[in-house]
């Protein structure tokens, strides 16, 4: 996606996302990680069409869907659904669960009222909730159950792609595993592709086939789970991994005081050159002058850094080539 979401707050314009490209194969899961404010949610919302990119395209099954409007857009939206972060805010408290699940079917005009209700019950069964949940209100459910309802709603139109924005960050640790396992099971049975957005690297690692690390609106590293975790190339990714607390006292105590210093700079006026240079332990003069491009570190593994932690491949393909290499079978090329 070239260009970015445009947030007009009076005088200031924020490029929430700038020049990001990613591709997603059939049945694949792409994980997006980064700190709050790095633009990952905006990117997710642009993919499903809730946010209009100021430039760039979203391509699904070979056709550009970001330029569609009206009836045509509504029809195509069946294929792209979203699962939201906050299970307490994303369900209408005055609608019974049945109505919530039937609403997308009504909007799309699928089936008779009776069939729609039957479908809603079916969806509830798929996410492991009893049929009598149809007549209950959201407040009667726990956070984990509500997130299941949110997943059922996203599944109602049998989409090809579900964008899950922080699907478990509002849930308790012991409930998280259940929701994540459910998402995995449904992916296998429905041949779904997921874009999973999370600030929790463990969640993304568990679900995603490929992971993209974002920093201040840009993609700094893309690769498979192993590339990101064991063959880390970008110092920002390394810092993020370092910051995860691990349940091993000796290891955890040894790293006290390390980690990334400072906070995310304002996206209104991002640093020149490499955007991470203000917090990077390896930054040098070159980083302030020149913006690094994505370089390949192996098949499907790219990172944008002048002084990466690993040696890049000798033949340097351009960023576009590297992305194409990462593409695979493309459903949604964004």
């Amino acid at each position, binding site marked *: 996606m070239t260009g970015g979401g445009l947030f007009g707050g009076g005088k200031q314009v924020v490029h929430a996302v700038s020049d990001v490209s990613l591709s997603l194969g059939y049945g694949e899961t792409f994980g997006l990680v980064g700190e709050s404010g790095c633009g990952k949610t905006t990117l997710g919302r642009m993919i499903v069409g809730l946010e209009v990119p100021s430039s760039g395209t979203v391509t699904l099954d070979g056709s550009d869907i970001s330029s569609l409007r009206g009836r045509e857009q509504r029809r195509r939206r069946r294929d792209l659904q979203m699962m939201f972060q906050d299970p307490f805010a994303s369900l209408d408290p005055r609608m019974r669960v049945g109505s919530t699940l039937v609403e997308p079917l009504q909007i799309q005009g699928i089936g008779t009222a009776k069939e729609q209700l039957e479908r809603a019950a079916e969806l509830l069964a798929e996410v492991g909730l009893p049929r009598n949940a149809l007549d209950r209100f959201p407040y009667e459910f726990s956070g984990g159950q509500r997130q299941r309802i949110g997943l059922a709603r996203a599944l109602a139109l049998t989409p090809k792609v579900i964008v899950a924005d922080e699907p478990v960050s509002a849930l308790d640790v012991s409930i998280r*595993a259940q929701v994540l396992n459910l998402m995995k099971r449904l992916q296998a049975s429905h041949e779904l592709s997921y874009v999973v957005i999370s600030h929790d690297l463990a969640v993304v690692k568990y679900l995603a086939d490929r992971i993209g690390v974002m920093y201040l609106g840009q993609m700094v590293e893309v690769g498979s789970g192993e590339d990101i975790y064991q063959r880390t190339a970008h110092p920002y990714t390394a810092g993020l991994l370092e910051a995860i*607390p691990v349940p091993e006292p000796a290891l955890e105590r040894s790293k006290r005081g390390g980690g990334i210093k400072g*906070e995310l700079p304002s996206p209104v006026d991002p640093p020149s050159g490499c955007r991470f240079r203000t917090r990077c332990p390896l930054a040098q003069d070159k980083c302030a002058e020149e913006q690094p491009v994505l370089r390949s570190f192996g098949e499907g593994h790219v990172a944008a850094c002048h002084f990466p932690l690993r040696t890049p491949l000798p033949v340097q393909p351009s960023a576009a080539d590297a992305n194409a290499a990462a593409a695979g079978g493309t459903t949604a090329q964004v």
Partner: protein
Amino acid sequence: MAPLLDVQHLTTHIRTAGRRVVQAVDDVSFQLEAGETLGLVGESGCGKSMTGLSLMGLLPPGGAMIKDSSIRLAGRELVGLPDRELRRIRGNEIAMVFQDPMSSLDPTKTIGVQVAEPVLLHRGCGRAEAMERAAEVLGLVGLPHPKERLKDYPHQLSGGLRQRVMIAMALANEPKVLIADEPTTALDVTIQAQILTLLQDLKDRLGMAMILITHDMGIMAGHADRVNVMYAGRIAESTGTEELFGAMRHPYTQGLLAATRRWPRTAASSCTPSPACRRTSPTRRRAAASPSAAPTPRTGAGRRSRGCSATTDTCSPAGTRPPVRSTRPHRPGRCCWTRRPPRPVTPWSATSWSVTSQSVTSWSGRPRPRTPKRRLSPRAGCSKCGTWSRSSR
């Protein structure tokens, strides 16, 4: 010498909207020495935050009460102290950092005024002096240019900086005990690491004792000296951090750890389990079912209805619960089932057991039999003992 903070048999009852009595904290005892960090770990609703609030005397009005308990701070009994006395201690000798920096700061007041408030209240100094102290403390917690930022409002700060302001408020009077209730849950991992390191530094520099409340076993591993694992209002396991991670005794602790996924840093540190391995490996077993009913008073080990991996007939003779038994000295754990046979009951746990066999009194004053809620299965033991079974709902 008496410990800095000595909590004995802390039991807190809360009356819910439906007039039901919930035993949020149930016979919790622990001690805290100066300079020590005690971790309280468990899921939401297990009573860890209520333990913190009980210590602060900040229970919700209209119905909450602490029963038959003793909280001694530096030898002084806090339970039953009149409000006026308690106000002198709260925010002065014992202070708390709350979970959500977005909602715990007053949006209508500048951060300088908010940090200076406890100083004004407890030190009896003038406004200018209090503001000076506020700037000093804000500098201490790593807020850049504290003097200029005294007039900033909370909305002008990022989440990480707001949490630093919260910590500054708590530290303004150099308390003896700091209670940090999920201080980093709302923050990114990078900022989380910074805040935890800051808390650790400040604790060492000021010689405070800290109670760190979290649900993250990783944070426990890095920052607590001792850990109390809480479940359903009770302490399920209590031990030193190294010992706890070396050999977990209580099945619930094992479940909690399994739910905290651990990823290999380097190829040498551990292997990546295959999906099949993930399903079957005992370290990856997860606590099944929902804890929605966790804080209600119940019989048995407090865990029997949650699909405990090790439920047997001995876990739940009707109306009883297991005493805290020790497998090693100074290592109490409240479960019938441990990996190795437990030692005989130690005197410490014997006293703790003797006061717990009381029935819950309803708010009308009539004693109510201690019965589990309807949805909690009354069956004794699990036929599939040794496996994690789903709760029978």
